[in-house]
């Protein structure tokens, strides 16, 4: 097992190296640089040259790449050229906020999907099925910047029952009940498309199970539909849904970029959007490389788990 894992490491490292080159090059291919943003609309070309000098952007691209790579390898990620702080501090704070938001949205999506799917198959009412189908279609079709603004105006402005965006002034950890209220709207908006996808998938999965002989047998024994669903069918319908759930995590993190902007939630999406628009190369490079690294690590872990479960994979790799 260890040998299998070790064999996989070089390809993971190669992917990271190639990714670092691609990220660095692509960013430089985008017209404009941080000096232009920092100098502003009334700056002279001479002022821009001066800022480029300050930021170390006048050296050769190759030298800049190796300086950056050296920093990454020694965990000296550097400073944001626009915001001025240490990159690890910036990313650390934003990552916590995004994790809280995405995790809450994930829990909400699962809860919504669970309640709606089981209700549809237990009660078997046409109106309920139509309602849930309609919800699923709408939640997938309407972009989250629309649902975000609508819910913000309804709950934050018209009814004033939830905060209209932002984070608690004392921080997320100070008062959990207050934090929960700030979190609710963005989390719901972020959760809706995933909840819709999971609902459709789980409902279909439950329906497929309900057509199988063991359910017919249970019904013949006089067991109620609800009990059959909760005690027997759900257990069998969940595994494929869990696979879909894993894919939804990526979608949630992607959707967080828009939702964080609408609700002034200071997470990674907010940071990345701002860093790209201001050409804050050091921050964008690290955020993109980090996302590749996470993907590579997850891929490596899944390969290792797969290999541990299936000896053929291990042996095939050893040949």
């Amino acid at each position: 097992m260890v040998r299998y894992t070790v064999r996989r490491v070089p390809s993971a490292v190669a992917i990271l190296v190639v990714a670092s080159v691609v990220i660095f090059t692509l960013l430089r291919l985008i017209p404009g640089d941080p000096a232009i943003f920092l100098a502003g609309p009334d700056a002279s070309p001479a002022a821009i040259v001066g800022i480029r000098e300050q930021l170390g952007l006048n050296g050769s691209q190759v030298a800049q790449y190796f300086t950056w790579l050296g920093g990454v390898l020694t965990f000296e990620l550097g400073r944001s050229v626009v915001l001025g702080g240490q990159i690890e501090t910036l990313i650390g704070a934003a990552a916590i906020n995004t994790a809280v938001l995405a995790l809450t949205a994930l829990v909400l999506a699962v809860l919504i999907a669970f309640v709606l799917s089981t209700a549809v198959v237990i009660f078997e009412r046409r109106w309920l099925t139509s309602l849930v189908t309609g919800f699923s279609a709408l939640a997938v079709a309407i972009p989250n910047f629309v649902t975000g603004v609508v819910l913000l105006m309804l709950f934050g402005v018209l009814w004033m029952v939830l905060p209209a965006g932002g984070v608690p002034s004392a921080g997320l950890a100070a008062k959990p009940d207050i934090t929960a209220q700030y979190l609710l709207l963005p989390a719901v908006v972020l959760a809706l498309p995933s909840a819709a996808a999971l609902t459709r998938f789980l409902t279909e999965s439950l329906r497929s199970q309900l057509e199988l002989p063991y359910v017919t047998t249970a019904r013949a024994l006089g067991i109620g539909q609800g009990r059959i669903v909760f005690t027997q069918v759900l257990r069998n319908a969940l595994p494929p849904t869990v696979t879909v759930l894993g894919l939804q995590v990526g979608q949630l993190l992607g959707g967080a970029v828009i939702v964080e902007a609408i609700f002034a939630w200071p997470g990674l999406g907010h940071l990345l959007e701002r860093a790209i628009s201001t050409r804050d190369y050091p921050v964008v490079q690290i955020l993109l490389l980090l996302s590749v690294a996470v993907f590579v690590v997850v891929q490596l872990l899944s390969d290792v788990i797969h290999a541990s479960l299936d000896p053929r994979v291990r042996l095939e790799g050893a040949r």
Partner: protein
Amino acid sequence: MNRRHRRKTRWQSKTALALVSALLLVLTGCTSAVQQARSENANAAVREGGTLRAATNLDLVPATFYQGQSVVLGLVYDRLIDYHSDSLTPQPSLATGWQVSHDGRTATLELREDVQFHDGRPFTSADVEFSLRTYADPAHVGQLARTAQAISGYDTSAPHRIVLTLAHPVSNLFDLFSIVPIIDSATAAQLFTGEKYNGTGAFKFTNWTKGTKVAFAANPDYWDGKPRLDGVDVQIVPDAQTRTAQIRSGQLDLVLNPTIRDADQLGTTPGFEAIPTTGTSLSTYLGTNVTAPGLADVRVRKAIALAVDRDRIQAEVFQGHGQTGNLPWPEYSPAFDATKNKTYAKDPAAAKALLNEAGPVPELPLAYSAGDPAGERIAQIVQADLAEVGITVTLEPKESTLFLKDLVAGTYGGLWVTLHTFAQFNPATLTVSAYPFNSDKNSSNFIDAEYKAHAEAAWKTSDPTSPEARAAYVALNDDLLEHLFLIELVSDTGRFVTSSKVHDISWTHLGNLDLSQTYLTEG
């Protein structure tokens, strides 16, 4: 009913009861975040103190301290002099008196003696020298750096008097004094990294949570009296709709840069006030690359100036705010000329006649910053107006950094729409320091010896209201109207939106926030 069914019913009842109880506990036991946000100032509203909660879309950018840091610059720092909103007459601030020699080569400023930085260090003439020298450094991109660079000598032998020697007289010296923040030499390095802002202003910088909030506390030792507020929290809220929603919901007291539409809507809503920042200037113009095909002929540029419907732009985009005109100056500017300001009004027939003389005009690209709804709408109106006189325009939305890149490099293919500021100061500040007007190199690639001579003449004079200076302004106005490398459209001010419990809010000529006299009430 069998035993199993009864047990199931009891289980369901207990579960339902537990769920309802938990829900009630949550609803009654938790504090409402909305109530908490609205009541954070409830006590402060009826007495001196309280924290003012503001929002802006722009986070701090420490590397460019002198640009776009209006909150920090306004709250934490003082300047040598100030201007009233509708005048260019210097008013005392850290300098209490001043004298400029007849030849304009020496300026003497008397400084306040009762001022100290937030860390307790006394303010002296050496701080003025350090501040002006730092501002003059091209690396810091100070807008009036060229004027600061004209200062060739500093005499700081007296702690509360500074004598400046200038390489040549400059007409916008007091603009420089009204813009340059007085900074602390000991913490200057931390200033440009955003770690520490040590000024002499009414509020002390306390904390910056990047991307989230900047916090300030009242300076109890402020030379102009302790501010009535306890502090100011400025939240970073990128989305305009969210900022509006937050002030409507009571989460905010002040929105710093609302859209015109949001300001108008809130301004007519009870409980809110839209405040135009009189004295600031945001002029929208149509830029022309005078080297681009078609636009090299000044008759085509004049035809464009005659084809554009400025009144429609003012009515539809600016909701009736601002002033239309052909020159950048506000009425209180010494360069203002009411007659010349109306040289080009919409006249499609005259425009067509000029175009007939000039011959066929190729299709012209018109760039604007993508994501700027006002810029997009203006570009569409200009496109329609020019189509009316036979000029085909293609719209080119550009990502904001790319837009800036073309602006600075002068690489637009034809026309562009954007804003300039600095017309609210003495005229030389615009023609010397605002890049679109720069006579040496500008976005329009317009290089003209006469224009350069007139710009220099307007700048290198000690009194901005002298007959010589006024003669130079007349010549500059003629240059601007004759060559039309920038076609002025509408000049407007910035604006704030406040809840009605915010009183006595103020701002500098540059639009920097001044809350030194601000207080809160329940109203």
